[in-house]
Protein backbone atom coordinates (compact mmCIF):
# COMPACT_ATOMS: atom_id res chain seq x y z
CA UNK A 1 0.00 0.00 0.00
CA UNK A 2 1.62 3.26 -0.98
CA UNK A 3 1.35 6.56 0.79
CA UNK A 4 -1.32 8.11 -1.37
CA UNK A 5 -3.62 5.18 -0.86
CA UNK A 6 -3.26 5.49 2.89
CA UNK A 7 -3.87 9.19 2.66
CA UNK A 8 -7.00 8.67 0.65
CA UNK A 9 -8.30 6.10 3.08
CA UNK A 10 -7.57 8.49 5.90
CA UNK A 11 -9.32 11.37 4.18
CA UNK A 12 -12.44 9.54 3.38
CA UNK A 13 -12.23 7.39 6.46
CA UNK A 14 -13.89 4.63 4.56
CA UNK A 15 -12.34 3.47 1.37
CA UNK A 16 -10.50 0.30 0.65
CA UNK A 17 -7.70 0.17 -1.87
CA UNK A 18 -9.83 -2.14 -3.99
CA UNK A 19 -12.20 0.72 -4.61
CA UNK A 20 -9.46 3.21 -5.27
CA UNK A 21 -8.08 1.32 -8.24
CA UNK A 22 -11.48 0.50 -9.73
CA UNK A 23 -11.79 0.72 -13.49
CA UNK A 24 -14.97 1.98 -15.11
CA UNK A 25 -17.54 -0.82 -14.80
CA UNK A 26 -17.92 -3.20 -17.71
CA UNK A 27 -21.72 -3.33 -17.64
CA UNK A 28 -23.95 -2.22 -20.49
CA UNK A 29 -26.13 0.81 -19.95
CA UNK A 30 -29.72 0.05 -20.79
CA UNK A 31 -32.50 2.44 -19.89
CA UNK A 32 -35.96 0.91 -19.83
CA UNK A 33 -34.53 -1.98 -21.84
CA UNK A 34 -33.16 0.31 -24.57
CA UNK A 35 -29.43 -0.23 -25.16
CA UNK A 36 -27.39 2.94 -24.98
CA UNK A 37 -24.01 3.57 -26.56
CA UNK A 38 -21.99 4.21 -23.44
CA UNK A 39 -18.60 3.23 -24.88
CA UNK A 40 -17.65 4.39 -28.36
CA UNK A 41 -14.67 4.54 -30.63
CA UNK A 42 -13.25 8.05 -30.40
CA UNK A 43 -13.28 10.52 -33.27
CA UNK A 44 -10.18 11.03 -35.40
CA UNK A 45 -7.71 13.16 -33.51
CA UNK A 46 -9.29 12.38 -30.13
CA UNK A 47 -6.61 12.02 -27.46
CA UNK A 48 -8.32 9.09 -25.69
CA UNK A 49 -8.56 5.62 -27.24
CA UNK A 50 -12.18 5.11 -26.25
CA UNK A 51 -14.98 7.46 -25.23
CA UNK A 52 -16.67 6.24 -22.06
CA UNK A 53 -19.85 7.57 -20.50
CA UNK A 54 -19.61 8.93 -16.95
CA UNK A 55 -22.25 6.35 -16.01
CA UNK A 56 -19.52 3.69 -15.93
CA UNK A 57 -17.65 5.55 -13.21
CA UNK A 58 -20.50 5.70 -10.72
CA UNK A 59 -21.45 3.30 -7.92
CA UNK A 60 -24.08 0.56 -8.30
CA UNK A 61 -26.83 2.54 -6.63
CA UNK A 62 -26.20 5.70 -8.67
CA UNK A 63 -26.08 3.69 -11.90
CA UNK A 64 -29.33 1.92 -11.02
CA UNK A 65 -31.11 5.28 -10.80
CA UNK A 66 -30.49 5.85 -14.49
CA UNK A 67 -31.40 2.40 -15.77
CA UNK A 68 -35.01 2.68 -14.58
CA UNK A 69 -36.36 5.95 -15.93
CA UNK A 70 -39.12 5.91 -13.34
CA UNK A 71 -36.65 6.28 -10.50
CA UNK A 72 -34.59 8.93 -12.29
CA UNK A 73 -35.39 12.23 -10.55
CA UNK A 74 -34.41 14.08 -13.73
CA UNK A 75 -37.55 12.75 -15.38
CA UNK A 76 -39.58 15.04 -13.10
CA UNK A 77 -37.85 17.89 -14.94
CA UNK A 78 -38.40 16.29 -18.35
CA UNK A 79 -42.13 15.97 -17.62
CA UNK A 80 -42.25 19.55 -16.43
CA UNK A 81 -40.52 20.48 -19.71
CA UNK A 82 -43.28 18.73 -21.62
CA UNK A 83 -45.88 20.87 -19.84
CA UNK A 84 -43.92 24.00 -20.70
CA UNK A 85 -43.68 22.82 -24.33
CA UNK A 86 -47.47 22.85 -24.48
CA UNK A 87 -47.99 26.12 -22.58
CA UNK A 88 -48.78 29.31 -24.49
CA UNK A 89 -46.56 32.26 -23.52
CA UNK A 90 -45.76 35.68 -24.97
CA UNK A 91 -47.49 38.22 -27.16
CA UNK A 92 -47.94 35.92 -30.16
CA UNK A 93 -50.20 33.49 -28.32
CA UNK A 94 -47.96 30.54 -29.13
CA UNK A 95 -46.48 27.60 -27.32
CA UNK A 96 -43.52 25.53 -28.58
CA UNK A 97 -46.11 23.00 -29.76
CA UNK A 98 -47.93 25.63 -31.85
CA UNK A 99 -45.09 25.47 -34.39
CA UNK A 100 -43.30 22.22 -33.57
CA UNK A 101 -46.32 20.02 -32.75
CA UNK A 102 -45.30 16.72 -31.25
CA UNK A 103 -41.77 16.98 -29.90
CA UNK A 104 -41.31 13.21 -30.23
CA UNK A 105 -41.39 13.79 -33.99
CA UNK A 106 -40.14 17.35 -34.51
CA UNK A 107 -37.32 17.14 -31.93
CA UNK A 108 -36.47 13.50 -32.61
CA UNK A 109 -32.77 14.03 -33.25
CA UNK A 110 -32.37 17.73 -32.49
CA UNK A 111 -30.75 17.30 -29.09
CA UNK A 112 -28.06 15.01 -30.50
CA UNK A 113 -26.95 17.62 -33.07
CA UNK A 114 -26.37 20.69 -30.88
CA UNK A 115 -24.37 22.84 -30.53
CA UNK A 116 -24.51 23.89 -34.18
CA UNK A 117 -23.61 26.89 -36.27
CA UNK A 118 -26.03 29.84 -36.06
CA UNK A 119 -25.68 32.05 -39.11
CA UNK A 120 -27.62 35.06 -37.77
CA UNK A 121 -25.45 35.54 -34.71
CA UNK A 122 -22.26 34.28 -36.36
CA UNK A 123 -21.69 31.99 -33.37
CA UNK A 124 -22.45 28.46 -32.28
CA UNK A 125 -25.83 28.02 -30.65
CA UNK A 126 -26.88 25.43 -28.05
CA UNK A 127 -30.34 24.14 -27.15
CA UNK A 128 -30.79 26.69 -24.36
CA UNK A 129 -30.03 29.62 -26.68
CA UNK A 130 -32.13 28.16 -29.51
CA UNK A 131 -35.08 28.03 -27.09
CA UNK A 132 -34.45 31.66 -26.14
CA UNK A 133 -34.21 32.60 -29.81
CA UNK A 134 -37.62 30.99 -30.43
CA UNK A 135 -39.14 32.62 -27.37
CA UNK A 136 -38.02 36.12 -28.33
CA UNK A 137 -38.46 35.98 -32.11
CA UNK A 138 -41.43 33.65 -32.55
CA UNK A 139 -43.40 33.69 -29.30
CA UNK A 140 -42.92 37.29 -28.21
CA UNK A 141 -41.85 35.97 -24.81
CA UNK A 142 -38.85 36.94 -22.71
CA UNK A 143 -35.63 34.98 -23.02
CA UNK A 144 -34.98 32.73 -20.04
CA UNK A 145 -32.15 33.89 -17.83
CA UNK A 146 -29.43 31.30 -17.24
CA UNK A 147 -30.81 28.26 -15.37
CA UNK A 148 -34.02 30.18 -14.59
CA UNK A 149 -37.66 29.75 -15.51
CA UNK A 150 -38.24 26.80 -17.77
CA UNK A 151 -34.72 26.72 -19.20
CA UNK A 152 -33.46 23.51 -17.58
CA UNK A 153 -36.67 21.43 -17.81
CA UNK A 154 -37.40 22.52 -21.38
CA UNK A 155 -33.81 21.86 -22.49
CA UNK A 156 -33.95 18.46 -20.78
CA UNK A 157 -37.26 17.69 -22.48
CA UNK A 158 -35.92 18.62 -25.93
CA UNK A 159 -32.67 16.67 -25.47
CA UNK A 160 -34.54 13.69 -24.04
CA UNK A 161 -36.29 13.31 -27.40
CA UNK A 162 -32.86 12.20 -28.73
CA UNK A 163 -32.34 9.74 -25.86
CA UNK A 164 -30.13 6.92 -27.13
CA UNK A 165 -28.98 8.68 -30.30
CA UNK A 166 -25.26 9.31 -30.77
CA UNK A 167 -23.97 12.81 -30.10
CA UNK A 168 -22.80 14.42 -33.34
CA UNK A 169 -21.28 17.83 -33.94
CA UNK A 170 -20.83 19.28 -37.41
CA UNK A 171 -17.58 21.25 -37.51
CA UNK A 172 -17.84 21.98 -41.23
CA UNK A 173 -20.60 24.59 -40.82
CA UNK A 174 -19.63 28.27 -40.59
CA UNK A 175 -16.71 28.96 -38.26
CA UNK A 176 -17.31 25.89 -36.08
CA UNK A 177 -13.74 24.68 -36.59
CA UNK A 178 -12.39 27.96 -35.18
CA UNK A 179 -14.65 27.66 -32.13
CA UNK A 180 -13.46 24.08 -31.71
CA UNK A 181 -9.87 25.34 -31.72
CA UNK A 182 -10.70 27.96 -29.11
CA UNK A 183 -12.48 25.36 -26.99
CA UNK A 184 -9.52 23.03 -27.24
CA UNK A 185 -7.18 25.79 -26.13
CA UNK A 186 -9.37 26.40 -23.07
CA UNK A 187 -9.62 22.67 -22.32
CA UNK A 188 -5.86 22.40 -21.93
CA UNK A 189 -5.27 25.79 -20.28
CA UNK A 190 -4.47 25.54 -16.58
CA UNK A 191 -6.43 27.95 -14.42
CA UNK A 192 -6.98 28.92 -10.83
CA UNK A 193 -4.93 28.71 -7.68
CA UNK A 194 -4.86 24.94 -8.10
CA UNK A 195 -3.48 25.34 -11.60
CA UNK A 196 -5.68 22.67 -13.16
CA UNK A 197 -7.00 22.34 -16.68
CA UNK A 198 -9.98 20.28 -17.76
CA UNK A 199 -7.43 17.79 -19.12
CA UNK A 200 -5.63 17.48 -15.76
CA UNK A 201 -8.59 15.58 -14.35
CA UNK A 202 -10.64 14.29 -17.24
CA UNK A 203 -7.93 13.30 -19.71
CA UNK A 204 -4.76 12.55 -17.75
CA UNK A 205 -6.38 11.16 -14.61
CA UNK A 206 -9.73 9.79 -15.59
CA UNK A 207 -10.33 6.49 -13.83
CA UNK A 208 -8.36 7.65 -10.78
CA UNK A 209 -9.79 9.14 -7.63
CA UNK A 210 -9.81 12.77 -6.55
CA UNK A 211 -10.48 12.16 -2.89
CA UNK A 212 -13.37 9.71 -3.08
CA UNK A 213 -14.61 10.86 -6.48
CA UNK A 214 -13.98 8.49 -9.37
CA UNK A 215 -12.91 10.84 -12.14
CA UNK A 216 -14.76 10.36 -15.42
CA UNK A 217 -13.75 11.55 -18.87
CA UNK A 218 -16.04 14.52 -18.36
CA UNK A 219 -18.27 13.74 -21.31
CA UNK A 220 -21.25 16.00 -21.82
CA UNK A 221 -23.79 13.61 -23.37
CA UNK A 222 -26.04 13.45 -20.30
CA UNK A 223 -26.78 17.15 -19.70
CA UNK A 224 -28.89 18.57 -18.20
CA UNK A 225 -27.93 15.92 -15.64
CA UNK A 226 -29.75 14.94 -12.46
CA UNK A 227 -27.17 15.39 -9.71
CA UNK A 228 -27.72 13.74 -6.36
CA UNK A 229 -25.73 16.51 -4.69
CA UNK A 230 -28.36 19.11 -5.58
CA UNK A 231 -31.31 16.75 -6.12
CA UNK A 232 -32.00 18.70 -9.27
CA UNK A 233 -31.20 19.07 -12.95
CA UNK A 234 -27.81 20.67 -13.50
CA UNK A 235 -27.06 22.42 -16.80
CA UNK A 236 -23.82 21.96 -18.72
CA UNK A 237 -22.72 25.56 -18.24
CA UNK A 238 -23.42 25.32 -14.51
CA UNK A 239 -21.18 22.23 -14.40
CA UNK A 240 -18.46 24.03 -16.41
CA UNK A 241 -18.59 26.90 -13.96
CA UNK A 242 -18.54 24.52 -11.00
CA UNK A 243 -15.42 22.78 -12.30
CA UNK A 244 -13.65 26.07 -13.02
CA UNK A 245 -14.64 27.41 -9.59
CA UNK A 246 -13.16 24.28 -8.00
CA UNK A 247 -9.80 25.10 -9.57
CA UNK A 248 -10.22 28.35 -7.63
CA UNK A 249 -10.42 30.50 -10.72
CA UNK A 250 -12.88 33.19 -11.70
CA UNK A 251 -15.39 31.52 -13.97
CA UNK A 252 -16.78 32.91 -17.23
CA UNK A 253 -20.46 33.81 -17.64
CA UNK A 254 -22.84 31.14 -18.88
CA UNK A 255 -23.20 31.24 -22.68
CA UNK A 256 -20.11 33.47 -22.94
CA UNK A 257 -17.89 32.88 -25.97
CA UNK A 258 -15.46 30.95 -23.77
CA UNK A 259 -18.05 28.50 -22.48
CA UNK A 260 -19.73 28.15 -25.89
CA UNK A 261 -16.33 27.24 -27.35
CA UNK A 262 -15.83 24.75 -24.52
CA UNK A 263 -19.28 23.28 -25.23
CA UNK A 264 -18.37 22.82 -28.92
CA UNK A 265 -15.07 21.15 -28.01
CA UNK A 266 -16.34 18.90 -25.18
CA UNK A 267 -19.34 17.85 -27.28
CA UNK A 268 -16.89 16.83 -30.02
CA UNK A 269 -14.96 14.80 -27.43
CA UNK A 270 -18.21 13.07 -26.43
CA UNK A 271 -19.18 12.21 -30.00
CA UNK A 272 -20.54 8.74 -30.56
CA UNK A 273 -22.00 8.34 -27.06
CA UNK A 274 -25.78 8.20 -26.77
CA UNK A 275 -27.61 11.25 -25.51
CA UNK A 276 -28.39 10.22 -21.91
CA UNK A 277 -30.37 13.29 -20.87
CA UNK A 278 -31.24 13.23 -18.06
CA UNK A 279 -28.20 11.24 -16.88
CA UNK A 280 -27.87 10.59 -13.14
CA UNK A 281 -24.60 11.46 -11.48
CA UNK A 282 -23.39 11.92 -7.90
Amino acid sequence: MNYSYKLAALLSGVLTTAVLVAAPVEETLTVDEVDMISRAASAEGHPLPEVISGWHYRTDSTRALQTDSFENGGMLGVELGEEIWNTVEGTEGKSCASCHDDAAVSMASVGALFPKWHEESGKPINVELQINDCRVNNMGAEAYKFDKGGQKPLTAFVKHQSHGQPVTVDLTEGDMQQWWEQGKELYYRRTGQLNLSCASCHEKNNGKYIRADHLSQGNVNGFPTYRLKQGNLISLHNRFRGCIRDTRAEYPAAFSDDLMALEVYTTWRSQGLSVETPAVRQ
Partner: protein
Amino acid sequence: MNLTRRKFLTVSTSAAVATFFGGSRAFATVDEINKAISDFTGGGEPESGVLALKTPEIAENGNSVPVSVTVESPMTDDDYVESVMILAEDNPNPEVATFHFSPASGEAKASTRMRLAKTQNVVAVAKMSNGKFYKASNNVKVTIGGCGG
Protein backbone atom coordinates in the same frame (compact mmCIF):
# COMPACT_ATOMS: atom_id res chain seq x y z
CA MET B 1 4.06 18.21 -15.38
CA ASN B 2 2.97 14.79 -14.39
CA LEU B 3 0.18 15.09 -11.87
CA THR B 4 0.57 12.21 -9.46
CA ARG B 5 -2.21 10.76 -7.45
CA ARG B 6 -0.63 12.12 -4.28
CA LYS B 7 -0.68 15.65 -5.59
CA PHE B 8 -4.23 15.18 -6.69
CA LEU B 9 -5.29 14.06 -3.26
CA THR B 10 -3.40 16.87 -1.61
CA VAL B 11 -4.90 19.64 -3.66
CA SER B 12 -8.36 18.31 -3.24
CA THR B 13 -8.46 18.00 0.54
CA SER B 14 -9.78 21.48 0.99
CA ALA B 15 -12.67 21.12 -1.44
CA ALA B 16 -15.85 22.03 0.34
CA VAL B 17 -18.26 19.34 1.37
CA ALA B 18 -21.83 20.52 1.18
CA THR B 19 -24.78 18.47 2.25
CA PHE B 20 -28.36 19.28 2.79
CA PHE B 21 -27.68 19.26 6.49
CA GLY B 22 -25.64 22.44 6.24
CA GLY B 23 -22.45 23.50 7.99
CA SER B 24 -22.48 23.46 11.78
CA ARG B 25 -23.60 20.02 12.78
CA ALA B 26 -24.63 18.63 16.10
CA PHE B 27 -25.08 14.93 15.72
CA ALA B 28 -27.60 12.72 17.46
CA THR B 29 -26.53 11.21 20.76
CA VAL B 30 -26.76 7.61 21.97
CA ASP B 31 -29.48 8.72 24.40
CA GLU B 32 -31.53 10.17 21.55
CA ILE B 33 -31.27 6.94 19.58
CA ASN B 34 -32.22 4.83 22.59
CA LYS B 35 -35.12 7.13 23.40
CA ALA B 36 -36.42 7.05 19.82
CA ILE B 37 -36.34 3.24 19.90
CA SER B 38 -37.96 2.90 23.32
CA ASP B 39 -40.65 5.44 22.37
CA PHE B 40 -41.39 3.27 19.36
CA THR B 41 -41.35 -0.05 21.24
CA GLY B 42 -42.94 1.27 24.44
CA GLY B 43 -39.93 -0.11 26.27
CA GLY B 44 -40.08 -3.52 24.59
CA GLU B 45 -36.76 -5.09 23.69
CA PRO B 46 -36.34 -5.71 19.95
CA GLU B 47 -35.08 -9.10 18.78
CA SER B 48 -33.04 -9.87 15.70
CA GLY B 49 -34.27 -11.80 12.66
CA VAL B 50 -37.36 -11.50 10.46
CA LEU B 51 -36.46 -7.91 9.54
CA ALA B 52 -34.04 -7.38 6.64
CA LEU B 53 -32.53 -3.94 6.08
CA LYS B 54 -30.87 -3.23 2.74
CA THR B 55 -28.51 -0.31 2.20
CA PRO B 56 -25.48 0.17 -0.03
CA GLU B 57 -22.07 -0.49 1.46
CA ILE B 58 -20.78 2.75 0.02
CA ALA B 59 -22.81 5.84 -0.90
CA GLU B 60 -21.02 8.24 -3.22
CA ASN B 61 -23.40 11.01 -2.24
CA GLY B 62 -24.95 11.18 1.20
CA ASN B 63 -27.85 13.20 -0.16
CA SER B 64 -29.52 10.21 -1.76
CA VAL B 65 -28.91 6.82 -0.19
CA PRO B 66 -31.33 4.01 -1.06
CA VAL B 67 -32.81 2.13 1.90
CA SER B 68 -35.14 -0.83 1.76
CA VAL B 69 -36.80 -2.93 4.49
CA THR B 70 -38.47 -6.32 4.23
CA VAL B 71 -40.19 -8.07 7.14
CA GLU B 72 -41.26 -11.71 6.97
CA SER B 73 -44.90 -11.91 7.95
CA PRO B 74 -48.09 -13.63 6.73
CA MET B 75 -49.70 -10.14 6.60
CA THR B 76 -53.13 -11.41 7.68
CA ASP B 77 -55.63 -9.49 9.81
CA ASP B 78 -54.36 -11.38 12.88
CA ASP B 79 -50.66 -11.33 12.17
CA TYR B 80 -49.02 -8.48 10.29
CA VAL B 81 -46.31 -5.87 10.45
CA GLU B 82 -47.67 -2.58 11.79
CA SER B 83 -44.70 -0.34 11.14
CA VAL B 84 -40.98 -0.03 10.60
CA MET B 85 -39.00 2.92 11.93
CA ILE B 86 -35.73 3.90 10.29
CA LEU B 87 -33.05 5.80 12.20
CA ALA B 88 -29.67 7.18 11.18
CA GLU B 89 -27.43 7.18 14.24
CA ASP B 90 -25.14 10.05 13.30
CA ASN B 91 -27.48 12.44 11.53
CA PRO B 92 -28.34 15.76 13.21
CA ASN B 93 -31.70 14.17 14.04
CA PRO B 94 -31.82 10.38 14.05
CA GLU B 95 -35.35 9.99 12.66
CA VAL B 96 -35.50 9.22 8.94
CA ALA B 97 -38.98 7.82 8.32
CA THR B 98 -41.55 5.39 9.68
CA PHE B 99 -43.38 3.09 7.29
CA HIS B 100 -46.89 1.93 8.27
CA PHE B 101 -48.14 -1.30 6.73
CA SER B 102 -51.50 -3.06 6.82
CA PRO B 103 -52.75 -6.51 5.81
CA ALA B 104 -53.69 -4.81 2.49
CA SER B 105 -49.96 -4.27 1.89
CA GLY B 106 -49.70 -7.98 1.11
CA GLU B 107 -45.99 -7.85 1.88
CA ALA B 108 -44.15 -5.69 4.39
CA LYS B 109 -41.58 -4.39 1.97
CA ALA B 110 -40.80 -0.75 1.23
CA SER B 111 -38.00 1.44 -0.09
CA THR B 112 -37.11 5.12 -0.05
CA ARG B 113 -34.01 7.35 -0.28
CA MET B 114 -32.43 9.15 2.62
CA ARG B 115 -29.80 11.70 3.54
CA LEU B 116 -26.83 10.60 5.59
CA ALA B 117 -24.59 13.33 6.98
CA LYS B 118 -21.58 11.00 7.24
CA THR B 119 -20.52 7.36 7.54
CA GLN B 120 -22.73 5.76 10.15
CA ASN B 121 -25.09 2.99 11.20
CA VAL B 122 -28.62 2.91 9.89
CA VAL B 123 -31.07 1.17 12.21
CA ALA B 124 -34.52 -0.24 11.45
CA VAL B 125 -37.02 -1.41 14.08
CA ALA B 126 -40.16 -3.34 13.14
CA LYS B 127 -43.32 -3.40 15.22
CA MET B 128 -45.49 -6.50 14.76
CA SER B 129 -49.23 -6.72 15.44
CA ASN B 130 -48.51 -9.43 18.03
CA GLY B 131 -46.50 -6.99 20.13
CA LYS B 132 -43.07 -8.24 19.13
CA PHE B 133 -40.25 -6.03 17.89
CA TYR B 134 -37.32 -6.72 15.63
CA LYS B 135 -34.22 -4.70 14.94
CA ALA B 136 -31.57 -4.67 12.23
CA SER B 137 -28.70 -2.32 11.50
CA ASN B 138 -26.21 -1.70 8.70
CA ASN B 139 -23.19 0.50 8.34
CA VAL B 140 -23.16 2.83 5.33
CA LYS B 141 -19.92 4.46 4.29
CA VAL B 142 -20.57 7.94 2.95
CA THR B 143 -17.67 9.11 0.83
CA ILE B 144 -16.43 12.65 0.72
CA GLY B 145 -16.35 13.81 -2.86
CA GLY B 146 -13.62 15.68 -4.63
CA CYS B 147 -14.90 18.49 -6.82
CA GLY B 148 -18.14 16.56 -7.24
CA GLY B 149 -18.73 16.98 -3.51
